[in-house]
């Protein structure tokens, strides 16, 4: 059986329960069991854009949804097709804004590296880039 590793467009909704106006991931690719890369092209009408600038909560939500999509992806890999898992942010740690907030039109690319999974809590680190520049890094706990 071919394993789907790339999701985009409407297929993202197979990995996430979030919908408009707060769906903050539009591409997803699993790299291996512990690492994925998720993307978002920031549209000017994004709910977290103000005067063409993307704001901090949008960035953090994008990171959380990148990991939430990965948790569902991993569940599909191990247990077969299923509805997206409902993920909540349990904790954000060591968030650092590394460069100015991105503007509308920017393409975010976030690398999620899973550090541990204990019961229903997934701990991961994240790095978000636009092109070559790192926008933000953080660690989170996601509970599903």
């Amino acid at each position: 059986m071919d394993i789907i590793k790339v999701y985009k467009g409407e297929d993202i909704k197979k990995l996430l329960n979030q919908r408009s106006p707060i769906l903050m991931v539009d591409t997803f690719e699993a790299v291996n069991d512990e690492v994925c890369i998720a993307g978002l092209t920031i549209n000017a009408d994004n709910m977290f854009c103000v005067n063409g600038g993307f704001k901090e909560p949008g960035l953090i939500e994008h990171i959380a949804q990148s990991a939430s999509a990965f948790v569902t992806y991993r569940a599909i890999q191990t247990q077969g097709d299923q509805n997206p898992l409902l993920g909540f942010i349990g904790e954000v740690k060591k968030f650092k804004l590394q460069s100015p907030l991105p503007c509308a039109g920017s393409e975010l690319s976030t690398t999620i590296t899973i550090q541990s999974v204990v019961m229903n809590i997934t701990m991961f680190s994240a790095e978000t880039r636009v092109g070559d520049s790192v926008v933000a890094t953080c660690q989170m706990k996601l509970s599903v």
Partner: protein
Amino acid sequence: MLENKYFYINSSEATDNGHSFSIRLDANHPVYNGHFPGNPVSPGVCSIEMIKECVERLVKSDSILVSINQCRFINVLTPDKGDNLFIKVSSSLEDSIVKVSSTIVDANDIVYVTFKGEFQLK
């Protein structure tokens, strides 16, 4: 961004170690169409943004969230619990950086969010 749309500040008062903002959430905000369909949950990132907007009121300046040491979401916040919440903020300003410690609680002292982070004044 969210004040007077997603949430409203009823009043604020000085406390022993900072300020307490009495706020309420608007359960009809469109974000609940997508978070989640048929199951409204207040996004954690919107709680962080509410803290930021309360801090900006205190310092009378726009700001950028530059770091979060730790932010914990202890209880799931839903808009039906949002009639009477308190955002408690203590802060110190040094070289255009505001260090903030904040909690979001309800009238029964149930804690939803604890936050420690830094905002840079614009």
